[in-house]
């Protein structure tokens, strides 16, 4: 057995790919002599991140806080609304088109209204994160409830089970994999929402910092902000993914994705 065989390639793959990407980026900047104000090389970007470290850190935390607050609201509200909509087919029929319509509105068009109502600052950012991310939660929870096997429902109804029994014993546990699955999507969207709002109307956060850096022509810093966002996004996704596995391991039994 050689040393190469002992490497766990599956584990190493994401790191190798990331390093590879940065290497190609760095190399291309040198080889093609790309000016730093068009596309700064990673070395320049990382240096900018180091240089503006404390500010970048502070703004990243602000964005993280904004995102998680909006996301938290979305979980509470989305779970509640999803259960409500999935409860009865009539409610589902009544509210679903409204939901679709609401979700179709580009959230960037809503931010000015939020600013009008709440002024600039963190409130519109939290609300944008919330508005953009609750939809997948609602839809997934409602779908989980709506797809209860009719036989299961018959078994329980024949025993005199009330709607509430069926929901608590079957519907809600059944919709949990959908719910936790939707959190991965929702957290990403919440993040988009908060950054979007920060770039339009805020006085802190990574989005705001990017805007400032851009107007000061600090191109490497703009890219450093982007990378900070990417890292935060991956981190939050990973946390949600982990929670999903922990909470609904029974739903991942096929071994298909292993």
């Amino acid at each position, binding site marked *: 057995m050689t040393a190469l065989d002992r490497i766990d390639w599956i584990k190493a793959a994401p790191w190798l790919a990331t390093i590879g990407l940065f290497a190609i980026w760095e190399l291309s900047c040198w080889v093609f002599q790309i000016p730093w104000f068009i596309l700064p090389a990673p070395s320049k970007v990382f240096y900018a991140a180091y240089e503006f470290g404390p500010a970048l850190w502070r703004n990243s935390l602000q964005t993280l806080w904004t995102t998680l607050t909006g996301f938290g609201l979305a979980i509470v509200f989305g779970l509640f609304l999803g259960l409500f909509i999935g409860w009865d087919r009539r409610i589902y029929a009544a509210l679903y088109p409204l939901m679709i319509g609401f979700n179709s509105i580009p959230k960037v068009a809503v931010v000015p209204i939020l600013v009008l109502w709440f002024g600039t600052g963190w409130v519109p950012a939290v609300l944008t994160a919330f508005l953009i991310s609750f939809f997948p939660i609602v839809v997934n929870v409602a779908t989980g409830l709506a797809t209860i096997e009719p*036989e299961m429902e*018959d*078994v329980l109804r024949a*025993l005199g089970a009330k709607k509430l*029994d069926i929901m608590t*014993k079957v519907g809600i*546990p059944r919709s*949990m994999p959908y719910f936790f699955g939707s959190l991965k999507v929702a957290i990403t969207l919440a993040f988009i929402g908060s950054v979007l709002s920060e770039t339009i109307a805020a006085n802190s956060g990574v989005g705001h910092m990017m805007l400032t850096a851009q107007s000061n022509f600090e191109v490497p810093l703009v890219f450093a902000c982007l990378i900070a966002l990417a890292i935060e996004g991956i981190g939050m996704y990973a946390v949600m993914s982990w929670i999903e596995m922990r909470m609904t391991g029974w739903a991942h039994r096929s071994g298909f994705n292993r």
Partner: protein
Amino acid sequence: MSFVEIEDVSLRYKPQGDDEGTLAVEGLNLSVERGSFVAVVGPSGCGKSSLMKLATGLNFPTTGKVTVAGNDVHGPVSIAGMAFQNPVMLPWRLTRDNIMLPLEVVEPHRRTFRRDKAVNRERADKLLASVGLEGQGGKFPWQLSGGMQQRASLCRALIHEPELLMLDEPFGALDAFTREELWQVIRDLHAARKFTTILVTHDLREAVFLADKIFVMSARPGRVIVERDVDIPRPRDISVTYDQHFGEIVQELRSHIAEARG
């Protein structure tokens, strides 16, 4: 008075759009004695499943009357256990907890469920042992084979000691060997506990092997066209399925169904 009494019943499903609503059964008469085992056979789409729903109070007749255990059926009868072709186990519960599910729902058990948890557990494990699933209660249902899941599904139908057991093609999705094994399981359970059983099936051999009486239904709208008593003495060994008399009854039923299909 019979245990289940279906008198001149018709059932029309709710119209949807242009469809004026399917007439599932019409002029249906059927009575089942307490403790007996009857089978209902017929061409597909003859309203066999409607019959299941009528007898358990999940659907109400459009016209006519259904009585179970002497009471008019106005709602779910709750003395019934049901098993279907699809075992529909809840994957997040252990097999044992799946089986105890009816106890959490049906009166009077639901009030004492928490208090009697240990007793109920023991009961579930005993029932599992009686269908050949000893010690499997601690596994998740998806860790069991199809036949084992169907056995567990039978246990779930029987845990609350129902007086009426409704079986809707419970062995339809199983291989021939497993199916015959399960025939014997259900035969023994019925012999031991004497619950009234209505078995809806496509399999004529299954019907003849298990039932005291067989109802043949017509094509839609379904009604009973033939009632056939099965005069094979009990206890029946699986070998009776190769007897000449057994074969004759199956042949007879087959010709009735061929007629019913038109």
